Structure formats: C-alpha cells, structure tokens
C-alpha cells in the first residue's frame, strides 16, 4: 500500500570525498525542476577524505523553510551510515545499501525495509566508474518514491555538458541503471512523492550565494578575504563573477589585512566587504574600530560557527552576537543585520552597503553555517532585483566641491552626525583622516571640547540610523498567547514550529529580527505576554540584548549549542514541555 506524502526526507551518508553533497544538490535541482519544494542540509566533518558526512533533502508539495528530523529513506554508501542513522527512519521507511558493503552488525529494525542493491557494481557497469554510485543511488531513490527520472537526466545534461557528451552519456546510463535497480523494491516502499509537472521554474540556492548575489546587485565591487568555513564561499563566488561584473577580489595574508584592505577601498570610494567566520572576525576587531573612528563604510559578512577558538569548524551556532556588538575598544556606531532566509540574505546583501554608506560606519552581517550552507528553492521574483536601491548617502557633488570655500571638512559637525562625503581625487576634496581623535578636517586633535563633540557626532549616527531599522517580522497568530522570538537563521525552524503549535491549539506567533542593532524603535511594544527566545547558543545572547535595549525580560529561553541546527521538533518539544509543566502546576 503506497501513500503520497506531503513531506518526505531522504538522507545520503558516507565518507568525505564520495560526492554526497554535489549529488545531493543535483538531485535537489531535479526535484525542484519536477515542481517539488526542497530544503537540503549538508552535514560534514572538518576533513577532506574519510569520516562520516551526510546530506539530507526534505521534499514537499508546499514551500519549505526548514529541515526536520524524521527520515523516510536512507541511502547508505557505507556501514557507518546505517549504524548512525537507522534510528532516524520512520516506521515503514527504508535503507538502501551497497551489496558489497553489507550491513553492520547491529540489531535489525523490524519496522523498516532493508534494500540491498549492488550500487558499486552497477555504477561500474553502466557508467564505467564505481564512484558514480552517488548518482546511481539517487536514481534508485527516484524510482522508489515514484519521481520521474527525466528531471534527473535534465540536470545531468546541464551540469555535465561542459565535461563533454561522453560524460553526459555515462551519467544517463547510470541514472537508468539506478531506476531499473529500484523496480524490485518499489512495491515494498510505502512512500511516494511524484513530480508535479508544468510548475514554473524556481531557483535553488543557499544563504551564502543569496548574500553574494545581493551584495553584487547592491554595488559591492571590492572583496578581500582569507579562507574560513563557512564564509569563504562568498569570496569564491565573487571571484568567479569578478571579471564579468567588474569586481576586484583578493585572497590575502590574514583577516587583519582583509578588513584593512576593504577599509582602504571604502575610504577611496568603493563599496567593499570582507567575508569571514568568528575566528577571522576576531582578527579584524581592531580594524573594525578604525572604520568606526574614521567613518569609513565597510561591510563584514560573519558566517558564524561554534566557538570559542576552532571548536566545531563545519557546524553551526549563533554564539557571536554579543561579540560583534561589542568588538573593538571604545564606542562607535555599528549596524548589525542577521538574515534568516535565502530571500533575506539577498536583501540584506544590498541593504548592508546602503546602510554602510548612509551612516559611514561598519555594517556587520551575521549569518551562520546553517543559513550559509543549507539550500532552498525560491521563486525567481523572491530575489527581488527590482527592489534593489543603491543609495550612497550624503556626497558632495563635483559642482559643490568646485565651489567649496575653504578646506573640505571630512568630519563636519552635523545634526544627523553624517558628514557629507568626498573621496580623494578632487583638488578641493584633499583631506587626511586619522584614527587618532581628530577635528572636522581630520587633523589630530586632543582638545577635550573637540573630543566631546566629535564623539557625540559619531554616536549620533546610531540614533539617526535607528529610525530606519526594521521591526521584526511577525508570523502566526496576531493575538497569540505565546510569542517566540528569533533572530537570523532560526527563522525557518521556528516558523514551522509555530505552525505546528497552532495546529495543536497553542495560539503562538513568531517575532523574527533581521535588524539587530541598533534595536528598532517600537520593539518594546511588541514584547508582551509570554515570550520565549529561541537561539542557537548557550546563554540566550539576543534575549540579553533585548533586556539591555528594552528592559523586557523573556519568560523562557530555548537554546542549543551542540553545533547542530535547531529543528522544528526541538522547539515544539521544549514549548510543550513548558506548557504541560504549567498545566500540571495549576
């Protein structure tokens, strides 16, 4: 008895170097072309070969925002995969394993199916190379769930075209062999997820790609960086598009140089950024203060991973919030944005540069491994290129400079705190700024009154900027009893958790913050009733930040710091435990 599911997860596992993620992304592309919605989550160790990696693709007939914990079909390319993930299978689910690997010596589950298929042998025979079993096993999966394999073929054609027709053909033979191999097991596998033909084409991308695209659209033309997981794909993406879009990218000697170069480029008038993770950001701290002091627009993309130090290099955490908020000595205005979805990552990508130039100060974009690396399908119009605005803030025009009386005041005292900008190059714009306290011209000045006024001027920009910080997005019931608060990448899991809680009659809503600092005007008024902060860290840093900024103390905190992303189940289980506990008290 087969049933069409509206929600199904397939997990492939094996060693690093087996091509799990690339084949998983290819399969996800095929699913999206087949009119289905996907959420793909890679899980890998910090090594090039060996170890245990897995990639989970969740498939549904409605848009997805999150991964989820149950697995319906497990594709095991080694025994370790069976050992580790057999427990995640739902009753009725199945594991497909390579005949040559056999099964590990662990108790068999009676409620799941075990499908032995000679994956390596078939890949060798049909494609000429046993390594192609990663492609083959996904074709087996397509056969089992009843998904039309022509979509997999179309992806193989597109993705391997540049390697020549012979490679395309061998992939097509492997796909056919996989589908064929699935036939004897189709009757036993109970879950179906057939294609929905004729759906409009959709995009499939992760947070890093979406942010990079948004930054490019927003006029970023200079990217300096040092490789560090999970931020470096942004540097790679920009380098790959540099020539076509007129961007300068450099891999430099360290993160100190990376931010200093971006600051130099920003000073000279180019929209500049550096992508990194928390460790790299640690090295950038002094330079961040330089940008604040000398009022240079610059963007830092900080894709968090667990800390401190090296910690879990390929995993996720939201543990850097209060660090980036306070990084560098002294006080200066900074803006912190934390996108939660692919769409938000794109929008934050271009907004960050407008904010940096409008307020002539550093903007930090806080992403994390979960958002940076998980893939989701969105409609082309969800990356809203039409909405992109390039607003460079207050600039002196050529004519204004030509008619300027006296020397240019780079750090002119103004009501807003923003001093009209001019970049080096114009004869009337000649000026020198300094990381020392300086006067309106930029000259070093130790006078107390000047210090007081110049520091106030800089800090005033924070209040000016606060007026355009956006309030959190609300999702769920308007008159909820329970308000769950999230920031950054927990958007997806919490959104789904809220749906599930409301289905159970709990009357919940989500407030999701993308604009983190300065905390938007009017935030206090939204924090009413029972509030629960949901964060991927140990202490509840955003809850502490809200208390500092608004005086509101959240009722409870749902936290996670094991390096793995928060799932909808993790949230609902905690919430239900709180509410059941309360019921038993009354």
């Amino acid at each position, binding site marked *: 008895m087969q049933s069409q599911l509206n929600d199904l997860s397939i997990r492939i596992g094996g060693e690093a170097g087996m091509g799990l993620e690339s084949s998983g992304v290819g399969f996800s592309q095929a699913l999206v072309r087949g009119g289905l919605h996907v959420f793909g989550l890679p899980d890998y160790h910090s090594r090039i070969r060996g170890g245990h990696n897995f990639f989970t693709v969740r498939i549904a007939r409605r848009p997805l925002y999150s991964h989820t914990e149950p697995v319906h079909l497990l594709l095991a390319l080694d025994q370790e995969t069976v050992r580790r993930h057999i427990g995640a299978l739902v009753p009725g689910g199945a594991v497909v394993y390579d005949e040559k690997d056999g099964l590990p010596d662990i108790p068999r589950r009676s409620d799941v199916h075990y499908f032995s298929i000679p994956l390596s042998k078939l890949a060798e025979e049909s494609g000429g190379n046993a390594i192609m079993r990663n492609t083959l096993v996904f074709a087996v999966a397509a056969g089992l769930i009843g998904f039309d394999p022509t979509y997999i073929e179309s992806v193989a054609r597109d993705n391997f075209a540049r390697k020549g027709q012979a490679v395309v053909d061998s992939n097509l033979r492997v796909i056919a062999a996989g589908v064929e191999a699935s036939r004897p097991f189709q009757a036993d596998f109970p879950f179906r997820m057939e294609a929905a033909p004729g759906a409009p*084409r959709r*995009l*499939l*991308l992760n947070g890093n*790609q979406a942010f990079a695209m948004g930054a*490019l*659209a927003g*006029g970023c*033309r*200079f990217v300096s960086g040092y490789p560090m997981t999970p931020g470096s794909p942004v540097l790679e993406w920009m380098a790959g598009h*540099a*020539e076509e*879009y*007129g*961007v*300068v990218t*450099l891999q*430099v*000697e*360290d993160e*100190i*140089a*990376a931010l*200093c*170069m971006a*600051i*130099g*480029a*920003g*000073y*000279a*008038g*180019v*929209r*500049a950024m550096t992508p990194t993770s928390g460790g790299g950001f640690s090295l950038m701290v*002094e*330079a961040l203060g*330089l940008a604040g002091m*000398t009022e240079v627009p610059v963007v830092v993309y900080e894709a968090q991973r667990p800390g401190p130090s090296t910690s879990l290099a390929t995993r996720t955490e939201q543990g850097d919030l209060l660090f980036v908020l306070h990084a560098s000595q002294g006080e200066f205005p900074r803006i912190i944005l934390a996108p939660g979805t692919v769409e938000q990552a794109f929008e934050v990508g271009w907004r960050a540069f407008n904010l940096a130039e409008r307020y002539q100060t550093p903007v930090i974009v806080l992403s994390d491994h979960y958002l940076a690396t998980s893939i989701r399908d969105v409609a*082309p119009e969800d990356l809203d*290129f039409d909405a992109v605005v*390039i607003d*460079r803030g207050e600039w002196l025009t050529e004519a204004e400079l030509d008619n300027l009386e006296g020397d240019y005041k780079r750090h002119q005292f103004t009501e807003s705190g923003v001093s009209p900008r001019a*970049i*080096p*190059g*114009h*004869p*009337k*714009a*000649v*000026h*020198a*700024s*300094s*990381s*020392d306290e300086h006067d309106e011209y*930029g*000259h*070093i000045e130790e006078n107390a009154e000047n210090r007081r006024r110049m520091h106030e001027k800089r800090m005033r920009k924070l209040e000016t900027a606060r007026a355009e910080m956006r309030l959190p997005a609300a999702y769920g019931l308007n008159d909820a009893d329970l308000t769950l608060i999230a920031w950054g990448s927990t958007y997806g899991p919490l959104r789904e958790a809220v749906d599930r809680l409301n289905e159970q009659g709990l009357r919940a809503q989500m407030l999701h913050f993308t604009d983190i600092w300065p905390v938007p005007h009017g935030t206090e008024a939204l924090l009413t009733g029972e509030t629960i902060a949901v964060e991927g860290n140990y202490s509840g840093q955003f809850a502490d930040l809200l208390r500092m900024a608004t005086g509101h103390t959240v009722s409870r905190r749902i936290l996670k710091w094991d390096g793995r992303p928060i799932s909808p189940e993790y949230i609902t289980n905690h919430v239900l435990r709180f509410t059941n506990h309360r019921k038993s008290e009354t």
Partner: protein
Amino acid sequence: MVTVDDFASPVRPTWCTGCGNFAIWNAVKRALAQAGLAPHQVMLVSGIGCGSKLPDYTRANGYMTLHGRTVPVATGVRLANHHLRVVCTHGDGDAYAEGLGHMLHAARRNIGLVDIIQDNRIYGLTKGQYSPTSDRGRVSKTSPWGSFELPVNPIALALAAGATFVARAWSGDLQHLTETIVRALGHRGYALIDVFQPCVTFNRQNSYEFYRPRVYKLQDDPDYDVTDKMAAFAKALEWGDRIPIGVFYQVEDRPAYEEQVPSLQAGPLALRPLEKLRPEQVQRLLEEVM
C-alpha cells in the same frame, strides 16, 4: 606647475628638534613636487608612531591608520583607485614588527605602493623600548639585559619576498633621499625605501654622527648593476664600518598587481559610476541557480 609649497599644511610637527623625520618629511614633499604630483593626486597612508604623523603635517590626501596596518590599508586604496599615487610613511615598529607580514606579502604582490620606512631603530612615541631593527644587545626599559634578538634585515627580506624595488636612504642626505623617493615614484610595482632616521631623544647610538662616516652610495659605483639580485643580496648583508645606501635592486619587467587584475583594465573602480545590474545580467545570475 606643482611646487613644494602646495604641500604646506597649517599643522606644525610635534617632532623633537633635530628629529630625522624632518628630512623625510621635506624629501617626501620635494619628491612629490619633482614628480609633478599635486596634493589631490597623492594619498599618504601611515600607521601609528612619531613618523606616522607625517600626513597630518602635509597638505595631501592622507589616512593615518592603525599601528602595523599601513600597507594593507594602502593596498585597498590603490586597488580602489590606481590613479592615486599611494605613498606609505611609517616607522620600523609599524613596518617590521606588527606589519612585517604585510610588507612581505606586498612585495610578493608587487602592489604599486611607495613604502617609506622611517627606521629610527627604537620606539620613540612609547618612550624608548627596543625595536625590530635595534642592534642585538640594545639595552632599553624592556630589554634591561640587552636585547637577545638579531635585528631584522629589511633589505634582504624584501629581496627574498620578491620586491622589485629595494632601496635605503638616510635623513642626513636630503638630496639623495629626495632622489631615491623620486625614483621610487617612477616605479611600477612595490617600492621599499628603508630610511635611517636618527632619533635624537631615545637612540643616541644610531645618530647622525654614527651614520655619516659609514654610509656610502651604491650608485657611486658605475659598475653596480641594480638588476643583479645576487649582488643586491650581497650588499644587503654588508654592515659595519661601511653601510651601503641607494637603490639595491630595481627591475621593471614584472607587472604591478593592479596591472594584472582584469576588472581594473577599464580604469579605477572608484571613478566608475555605480549602477544597478542590467536585466540581462540579472537573468544570467538567476540561470546559474536554476
């Protein structure tokens, strides 16, 4: 016609009377004028230290940055606008302690900077600690037993890192110092000039009297070949009663970093209009993820 007076700033230096920085400051201004560069065509980038205040005393575009980070900031400026002649002026602590890595990488990169090191072989602004170029055995407040480290050899390091212009000058010969800077301003890639700069307050050893009888000019020898790297290495190791100054090494056959960047072929980034992506560009980006 650009003159030295064009670079005159209303701000007066805070340097001690007799400080070697005065000669460097004058030489920079003279060299810029001789090279025909006006204040708006120049960007002086410095770090933190006595010598790094030079941009504050000079009417030109300038940026006084962080201790040790002069070169990466200057690199960013140069890549954003390679029509600006970017000149770094910073001390030996800045360049050879905190910033040594950046110097070597700038040399490898051959980025078009003139990098002038005000090398007084002591920390002046923090009041007399030994520096990376202090002689071994230098007694200071932080090296009461005499320093145990050997001094860095900036000339040899720059050569080893692939620098295409490596020179030394000193504050006691304004004419020669100016000529050396002019020559560096004409170089296409990274140009290092290590300048002996007596610190009259904290370094009594490496004084004008110490250097004057010892320094001799490499270019006085008509047979000295500035394109011979091994000869340059040999001269870099020469130290003692005779200390060579002048251009140790100069080759013009390696393109500057910025000359090789495809995106800079159409002119400086900073001078190009910044516009939204065109519809066909958007379409191409979307196709990549379909």
